[in-house]
């Protein structure tokens, strides 16, 4: 059975949260670059995937990420009013508000899916957002959604971070075993 509350005990010691950040090219990605230029330090658990605009953000990417192995998802774009493409983030704002509520309705903890507007100048905000997201997800522990990745006992690849991968618990319902 998936456990959500007080599962701090269940968190494997060497577990590290995996978080994917979808960042718009014009603002947040620029802000993340600026964080680099300023040599800011933030946790490495976040990997940035560049999209042209937060309006390009298809909710299906989020489901894929959560289904396939990420513990958290960040979506970042320009501040409303600053969209390079004028209106993209307004659409994203609506879509993501609805989608976030839907995911939380299905039991996803709010910390696992976050949306933030970060401008190209807000390197500090980018760093803080990443730190906050990592903190939040770390506190929540490995994701509690059932994933069925079919590679149960594959030999480890030489370069593979197999432990982190195996740390994902295999939650399977009894009826699926039956099926």
């Amino acid at each position, binding site marked *: 059975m998936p456990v959500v509350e007080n599962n701090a005990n269940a968190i494997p010691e060497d577990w590290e949260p995996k978080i*994917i950040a979808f960042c718009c090219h014009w603002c947040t990605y620029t802000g993340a*670059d600026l964080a*680099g230029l300023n040599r800011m330090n933030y946790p490495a658990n976040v*990997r940035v995937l560049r999209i042209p605009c937060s*309006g390009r953000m*298809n909710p299906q990417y989020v489901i894929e990420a959560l289904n396939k192995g990420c513990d958290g998802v960040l979506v970042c774009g320009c501040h409303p009013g600053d969209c390079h*493409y004028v209106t993209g983030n307004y659409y994203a704002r609506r879509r993501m508000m609805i989608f976030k509520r839907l995911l939380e309705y299905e039991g996803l903890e709010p910390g696992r899916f976050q949306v933030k507007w970060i401008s190209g100048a807000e390197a500090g905000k980018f760093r803080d957002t990443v730190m906050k997201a990592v903190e939040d997800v770390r506190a929540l522990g490995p994701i509690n959604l059932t994933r069925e990745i079919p590679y149960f006992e594959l030999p480890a690849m030489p370069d593979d971070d197999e432990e982190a991968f195996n740390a994902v618990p295999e939650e399977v319902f009894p009826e699926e075993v039956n099926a």
Partner: protein
Amino acid sequence: MSRIGVFLCYCGSNIAGTVDVEAVAEMARTLPGVVYVETNKYTCSDPGQEGVKNAIIEKGIDRVVVGPCSPRMHEPTWRKLLADTPVNPYMLEVANLREQCSWVHKDKAIATEKAKDLVKMAVAKVARLSPLHSTEIPVHKKALVIGGGIAGMQTALDIADAGFKVTIVERETSLGGKMVMLDKTFPTMDCSACICTPKMSEVGNHPNITVKSYSEVESVSGYIGNFEVTIREKAKYIDYTKCTGCGACETKCPSKVINEFEQGMSKRTAIYKMFPQAVPSKPVIDAEHCRMLQEGKCGVCAKVCPTGAINYQDEDKLTTETYGAIVFATGYKLIDWKPLYPEYGGGKYPDVITGLQFERLVNASGPTEGHILRPSDNKEPKSVVIIKCVGSRDPNKGKAYCSRACCMYSAKHAHQYLDKVPDGRCYVFYMDVRTPGKGYDEFYMNTVHDGAQYLRGRVSKIYKEGDKLICKGEDTLTSQQVTVAADMVVLETAMVPADGIDELAAKFTVGRDADGWLVEAHAKLRPVETNTAGIYLAGTAQGPKDIPDSVCQAGAAASKVIGLLNKDKLESNPQISRVNEALCQGDGACANICPYGAISIVEKQFRENSRKVTRPVAQVNPGLCQGCGACTVTCRAGAMDLMGYTNESIMREVDALCQW
């Protein structure tokens, strides 16, 4: 399997200091589709680039991943490099190993792990990209300027002087706009007409400029370099090839109509020139008020016309032409204060006038021939109250913004009044006095020295007592109630966008802000461009401005246009949306969402199950699409995809990352 080459960069020690680049390279060799991995001290250096080129040829590489600094830095460099190789420049993905990895992490092991993931993602993405090719768009070397005010004229002149053809569309019967109505211009107090009318005739006589007066834009299609614009030239009922502008008709016309140019303070005839120096300097018939056109009897003008230029059968003419660039110089109007300010009488006191009416009153060719006489009884007002910020900086009743020019022209009005009525008293109610301009504050101070009395506060009420207008307000500096009995009140009302701009902007898919002003592409860095490529802004179409600023911006817009028209061809960005017509159901959701109007729905014929079917599908205009991808998410069927950021490539990028 694809043949992917991975080129990783040490960036000196910038990357290699915190990332074990060789370990990343080792990992990259095991990735599906990767046939070659190379590390380099400085990949972006000339020898580094040469190495990439050679490897591409030698190893038969067809897709490239580079792992150096941010793509925002060198992506164009890599694309340019690939253009010289058999690899398509868009079969490229940049893994950001510096700005987003080595520079932000300290622990080498952790940074190396992250670098591996970034390379994995890039490899997964590049494996799913397809070659893209820019198309060349021809540029029609002709510009359209909408609006013939000072901004429009200046833009047109600058473009025309550079050697390009320009058409000006002006919906009034003459060029000149608001500037030509003004009496003098601050701070130099030049006669406005004296500096504006020479511009008008210069425009009218310029060999490269075509003036379409009394005309409006009917429709537009196309994109940068190739706008097809249809212009409706309203019926003038006068054959301009015959008319000499002698004015005989105007003197005989029996219909008298309110004169808009004189702000309603005098009458004109139904056949009229807007004002004596109008360009073109020929009259039109105001069909609504012409007895001949309305009732079929009269025809006086035709009788008196010595050249037989009157043509009552005239009709609107539509002409379509292709332009390479378009400039919006549509200007402003003054806010209709009457419904907003009932406390100022809401229009029931004729002696409460607007600044523009004051300009005409003080103008030598105006209704009073330059004598300041109040409209109700043609007496000279001995005390005048000027109220600033009527409709401006008043979010409750009017607009939240500052109209920028009013501080200065109210000072000018006070100065002019005191000049012409030396024994008069002038009170100016103000919120702030803003004079940031060359010679502006000096001008204001002079006005104060002239005797204008500045009172800080809003007038809360105006009512009539006898023939006086009692203005009640508060002087917030002394916190005292102030009551002034004025003979005339001048309201310096807010500038708002010109009528009809909403429809016009929609036709061109130019964005408007909440107040209706046209939106520039970037407030700081692209102030005269719009988000629709090839469309530019000049003057107050973009927001309130005074004349020098409008002229400045007009020059800037012109220089952008000249830069564009100087090119014979444009290269289109191939990373734009593409329609899979087999999947498209043509419901147009994508077209609604597109901020650039780049998507249209067209009927097309298909063969489906060996039947011919005609159905609507979306069509992307490559000249307009900017590649934001908003349409792709709207399309549930996935018929719309963004090249370079396809659904497939992003999904596989996510997958690759999830497997870290």
